[in-house]
């Protein structure tokens, strides 16, 4: 028995070693360029972020550019989908990476409380003041100290549609929410194409929908209050937003592909495949990264599948961004310099070149983007100016806004199954929020 166990542990240990070595193998500088800088020669900077595959390759271009500029050796570590599951143990173990890219500001606040982050150097803050609106600076700040820079934005105020489905039904992209859930959706449904392919199996797609409706209907001021839980989820403005969403969920209208039961099981990006790969539905309400999910289908973004901005529900069209925040976990010159570099338009342009990237930096020109759709998305961010807001659920504590089968995700999924219960949904949201914000 004992022998068996030790043998097993030895094997396990070996496995862990192998794993570690392959994880490290992913890094490495981009090799000697023509004129490599020497300012940071000999320094190694470890950067942890969630990107893999093509996204990692694109980010690697930025790391290489920094290496060429300064001579620093860049090491990339992939955190996988669950950033905290990777960083948490490394923080507890006292061995964090130099720079980490966090997917949510909620995580930033948690880490600040754990004293795991280092405040940014004054020179980086100056860079931020120059290129970013104050909203983004505040987002990365806790108690007056700035810790993070939003380096990559996800534009969530966009709806993707199949051009064939729209032309078969003879409809145009709608300009208002009432048109969208009224004439457009009804005509599509009459024509035999379910209007919406919902990704409700992934709870965050529903929170994104809610945020767009809420930001447009209740306005940025209320949005900020709800984001910090200064107003409760039982507020009448939340009821209005839920009622607007119910116009899609209403089981009598048959607006959702496969009905509520099917929708609740369909996760992202399956919903994209269903809508644009199998042409079963006309629209997907999700962010710019649907474009990446299209790679799994034969549909081409820009011709078979196009986008229109999320229509205005209230006075103005909403622009909700998600995005990734770079933070320093070690007090080092390399970390400071690298984050400073990430905040420049120069880095953003390197990153934007291959596509699939949007910058919240206001000094990155639209011309930096390679294709029509990202130009359109970037333009929306630039024109919305100070009314752009960050994804509300990502600002909430993760237990409320970012956990599978819990909190806002779960409550909105239940609401989709039972859209007449606005009051009950609000009560549940408020109860869950209370628990999460207190803890």
């Amino acid at each position: 028995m004992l022998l068996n166990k030790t043998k097993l542990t030895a094997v396990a240990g070996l496995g862990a070693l192998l794993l570690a070595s392959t994880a490290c193998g992913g890094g490495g500088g981009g090799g000697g360029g023509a004129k490599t800088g020497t300012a940071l020669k000999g320094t190694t900077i470890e950067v942890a972020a969630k990107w893999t595959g093509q996204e990692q390759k694109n980010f690697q271009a930025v790391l290489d550019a920094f290496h060429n500029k300064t001579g620093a050796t860049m090491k990339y570590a992939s955190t996988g989908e669950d950033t905290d599951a990777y960083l948490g143990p490394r923080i507890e173990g006292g061995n964090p990476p130099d720079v980490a890219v966090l997917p949510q500001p909620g995580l930033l606040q948690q880490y600040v409380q754990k004293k795991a982050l280092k405040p940014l150097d004054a020179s980086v803050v100056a860079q931020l003041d120059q290129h970013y609106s104050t909203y983004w600076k505040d987002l990365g700040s806790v108690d007056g100290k700035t810790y993070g820079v939003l380096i990559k934005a996800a534009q969530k105020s966009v709806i993707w549609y199949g051009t064939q489905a729209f032309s078969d039904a003879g409809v145009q992209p709608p300009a208002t929410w009432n048109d969208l859930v009224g004439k457009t959706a009804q005509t599509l449904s009459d024509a035999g194409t379910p209007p919406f392919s919902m990704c409700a199996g992934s709870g965050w797609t529903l929170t994104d929908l809610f945020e767009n409706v809420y930001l447009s209907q209740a306005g940025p001021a209320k949005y900020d209050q709800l984001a910090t839980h200064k107003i409760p989820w039982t507020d009448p403005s939340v009821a209005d937003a839920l009622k607007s969403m119910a116009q899609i969920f209403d089981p009598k209208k048959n607006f959702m592909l496969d009905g509520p039961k099917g929708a609740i099981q369909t996760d992202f990006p399956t919903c994209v495949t269903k809508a644009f790969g199998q042409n079963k539905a006309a629209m997907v309400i999700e962010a710019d990264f649907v474009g990446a999910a299209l790679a799994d289908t034969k549909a081409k973004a820009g011709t078979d599948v196009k986008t229109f901005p999320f229509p205005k529900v209230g006075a103005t069209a909403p622009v909700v961004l998600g995005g990734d925040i770079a933070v320093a976990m070690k007090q080092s010159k390399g970390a400071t310099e690298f984050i400073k570099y990430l905040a420049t338009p120069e880095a953003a342009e390197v990153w934007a070149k291959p596509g699939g990237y949007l910058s919240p930096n206001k000094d990155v020109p639209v011309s930096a983007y390679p294709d029509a759709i990202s130009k359109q998305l970037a333009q929306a961010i630039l024109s919305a100016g100070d009314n752009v807001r960050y994804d509300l659920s990502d600002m909430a504590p993760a237990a409320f806004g970012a956990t599978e089968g819990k909190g806002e995700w779960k409550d909105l999924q239940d609401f989709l199954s039972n859209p007449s219960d606005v009051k009950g949904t609000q009560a549940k949201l408020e109860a869950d929020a209370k628990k999460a914000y207190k803890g």
Partner: protein
Amino acid sequence: MTIEEGASAVAAAGAPRQGPRTGRVNPSRWLALGFLAPALVLLGAIVVYPIVFTVIRSFFDAAGTRFIGVGNYTNMFTDSQTLVSLRNTVIWVIVAPTVVTALGLVFAVLTERIRWSSAFKLIVFMPMAVSFLASGVIFRLVYQQSPDAGVANAVIVSVHDAFAPPSPYPEAHPRPAKSGLTAQKTAGGTAYVTTSAVRPGQTALLPLVGMKDTDLPAGAKTAAAARAAPGAVTGTVWLDFTRGGGGTLGRPDRTEKGMPQMTMEAVSGGRTVATTTSRDDGTFTFSGLKPGAYRLRLTADNFAPPFGGVTWLGPTLITPAIIGAYVWVWAGFAMVLIAAGLAAIPREALEAARVDGATEWQVFRRVTMPLLAPVLTVVFVTLAINVLKIFDLVFIIAPGSVQADASVLALDMWRDSFGGGNDYGLGSAVSVVLFVLVVPAMIMNIRRFRREQE
């Protein structure tokens, strides 16, 4: 528990042990300790220390800085989510090992009798070679709602449709306004009835929408306007949607197609007086009607929603569905162990019973089962311990929307500490509870080993 351990347990249960050791051939105690030391250090570092640390950590808050006593435990047991997970864990521990052991027993007994038993055993055992993660992915696909994607529902739906053919127009419906048709609830589902009455000699137009013209039954022709006929109600039922928009609403346009084989009834005074079906161009005729006012009803069986199969991944069936996947993986394991046990049963005992006139069933009940009982217990307890820490299958098969309904303690532990909860204190508390639950099974196993060694 690993397979090897289980197998050695079977060997212990089956073969009689050699007599007690005699004399002092063992090395000195210090020498033994010296050889054991590396293993002990490893055990201490990777088994004992984590257990002790987890217990301590469970008394601290999320940040790990403040001692909160049993706070995490009270939190845990007042949270409805934990109670759901606890309930699911209990279901798992009872159902999964029972089903797997029973199936393993059946397979083992049956394979003794067949020719190609090795091949059969190999196939049943094969899923063990697939990682839990991969099995999870496979079964996530198997259980998909859509019969196009999920094989479970594909089978159920094809069997169902073989007996009850699907309706031709499941998605068709009238426009909400100005179609001249209203929905009517009938025993068979939703039927559509004309709002105004027609008399013999008049024609009726019944426009429907909600499906693509390419999905119409083969043979559907361009919709035609019906000619009035004396003593008969005539009319057209057609798909009133021109591709690309346009067309006159409520009129059969040149580009629009009729809906053939639509069953319809003429109703007068609440009673059905005539029945007919539409032709390929959508026209229909109710002939031989007495003078009077009639309403036309498109019967509900035209529109019956397609049978969608079983919602495996919904909140009610999710746990049984995942247990099904577990059984698929582990049935082979149980079979192999039990078959080994069976092979160790002395043939003479069985032969003696048969010679004495026992039926096969009696032999199985009275001789095989009692002799096999120790092996069955080993298998059952091994599986019970294994099931207590079930995590991967639940995590992968349950879609996010039902993960809370499907959750088990081990998954809760992960979700509380890493999967968004970010509370290592609470997570540690859950794992301590899990540990406490495993202990009785462990003690049982150890006792049994001891008994056998004596």
